[in-house]
């Protein structure tokens, strides 16, 4: 069927047939509460997600996880919870894996391999394997073409991603102050998220006067390394109807879409281009909606500028206008299209993307976990007063887009709709 024969407003493949029905997490920890095993944390998060869905252990028969070999295999978690699996897989990877694994979960359910799949990530991102390079991760042996950068002292995520932003500043006049607004806005969101690690609002000056990590990145342009586990439950829309909450129906998934190469991605095309440039051509036609239809975004904020580059390449603004988009108020609560209403990785905690999906699931339920009072029906009575310490529920949220980031050359995405 050609594009002209399809209704542009109809999802091409998924047609709302699958949903996220349960979400759960541990506390986000940094020192206080740290020191638990990834097994203990993973078990707690998966159990919380199952209970959130109103399911029992016997209802779950599939499990997926992702890690940098710094987690616990899913069959261990399943065994600890009395779950007998018909399917499991543990894959290598960090950011951008969540959306990709949701796509895999849908595939294995469609293939009849299992019925209901838990996706989890459990990580001691603060106390053991830190993205900033200290801890076990800096001791990883040198291999392959990493030597073309590592011999020059150019290795950490911040160091490797920053040239994309530096080139964006050169090509489009984008400023450090503009992307600092990503941190400012997310810090205001985190102030309304009782479980966020960093709940104190910051200013552009705070960001620009924080110590330089890798020019053009300041300390406060970088996300907060965290110990935590998070889990989500994917099942068919039919089964979702028996679950406890309004389902978040999945309309479109992009999984680990790539630039022409991902090592030395800057060999090809404009250097500031990220994988979302290619992902948009899958995400939007498959979802049957466009960026203008989206109420809330979850653009991955490993660093302030990663949020901007992805929003731009997925078409939320014109190429080169991302600096304006992230700083003009569009992205804040009460703005036209809030981003990372939880505070994201910059303020809530670093989870390799899964908590950004959890946040949007709760937004689509109209039951985000802020400080608004819980009513007799068990749901929060949202005030929509977004002043600090207040509400963070987006009014009438219907459609969300998560934009997951692994690196400039690889990303994933997902559009969800309120069921």
């Amino acid at each position, binding site marked *: 069927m050609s594009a002209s024969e399809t209704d542009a407003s109809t999802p091409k493949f998924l047609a709302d047939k699958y949903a996220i029905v349960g979400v759960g997490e541990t506390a986000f920890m940094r020192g206080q509460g740290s020191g638990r095993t990834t097994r203990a944390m993973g078990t707690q998060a998966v159990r919380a997600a199952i209970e959130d869905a109103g399911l029992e252990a016997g209802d779950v028969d599939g499990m997926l996880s992702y890690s940098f070999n710094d987690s616990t295999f899913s069959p261990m978690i399943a065994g600890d919870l009395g779950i007998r699996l018909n399917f499991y897989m543990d894959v290598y990877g960090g950011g951008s894996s969540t959306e990709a694994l949701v796509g895999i979960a849908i595939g294995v359910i469609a293939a009849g391999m299992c019925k209901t799949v838990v996706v989890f990530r459990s990580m001691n991102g603060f106390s053991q394997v830190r993205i900033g390079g200290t801890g076990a991760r800096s001791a990883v042996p040198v291999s392959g073409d990493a030597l073309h*950068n590592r011999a020059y002292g150019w290795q950490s995520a911040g*160091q490797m991603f920053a*040239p994309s932003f530096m080139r964006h500043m050169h090509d489009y006049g984008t400023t450090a102050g503009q992307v600092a607004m990503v941190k400012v806005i997310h810090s205001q969101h985190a102030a309304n998220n009782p479980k966020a690690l960093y709940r104190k609002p910051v200013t552009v000056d705070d960001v620009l006067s924080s110590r330089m990590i890798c020019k053009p990145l300041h300390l406060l342009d970088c996300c907060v390394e965290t110990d935590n586990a998070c889990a989500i439950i994917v099942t068919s829309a039919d089964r979702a109807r028996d679950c406890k909450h309004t389902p978040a129906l999945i309309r479109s998934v992009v999984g680990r879409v790539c630039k022409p190469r991902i090592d030395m991605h800057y060999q090809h095309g404009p250097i500031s281009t990220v994988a979302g440039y290619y992902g948009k051509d899958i995400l939007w036609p498959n979802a049957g909606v466009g960026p203008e239809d989206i109420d809330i975004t979850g653009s991955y904020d490993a660093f302030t500028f990663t949020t901007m580059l992805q929003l731009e390449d997925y078409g939320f603004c014109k190429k080169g206008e991302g600096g304006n988009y992230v700083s003009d108020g569009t992205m804040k609560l009460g703005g036209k299209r809030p981003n990372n209403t939880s505070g994201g990785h910059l303020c809530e905690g670093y989870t390799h993307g899964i908590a950004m999906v959890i946040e949007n699931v709760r937004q689509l339920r109209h039951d985000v976990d802020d400080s608004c009072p819980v009513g007799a029906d068990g749901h929060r009575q949202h005030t929509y007063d977004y002043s600090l310490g207040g509400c963070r529920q987006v009014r009438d949220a219907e459609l969300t887009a998560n934009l997951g980031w692994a690196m400039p050359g690889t990303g994933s995405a997902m559009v969800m709709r309120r069921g």
Partner: protein
Amino acid sequence: MDTHDAKKPLPRLTPDNRAFWEGCREHKILLPWCQYCDRPHWPPGPVCPYCFGDDLTWKQSSGRGVISSWVVVHKAWLPAFAADIPYNAVQVELEEGIRLTGNVVGASNKTLRVGLPVEVVFDDVTPEATLPRFKPR
């Protein structure tokens, strides 16, 4: 920059990249070049990524280019680099079109910018390993 610190990572030669690093020891930048479509590619690979051609040769680059992007590292990942802070890392677009990684030496970090013309200089960091770096031209 203390380039002779033995704890700094050095190139690990493989059949795919050996000619490049051996070229550096002779103070030449050699690029893998496809005999079919007459294009260089980077990083070195077993076949030409543009045409599948497997008849590759190594051709000498002019060693001249411009900075295509850059950063200045203020927090070292590896302890061996801590004494060099702040140091720069750059991508250089060579005249032949590929983009190489390196450092700029002999210039203040304040002078770095996209488009800055540079040329290669060779740093014999050990008797076995030579790293290409760049200086403004």
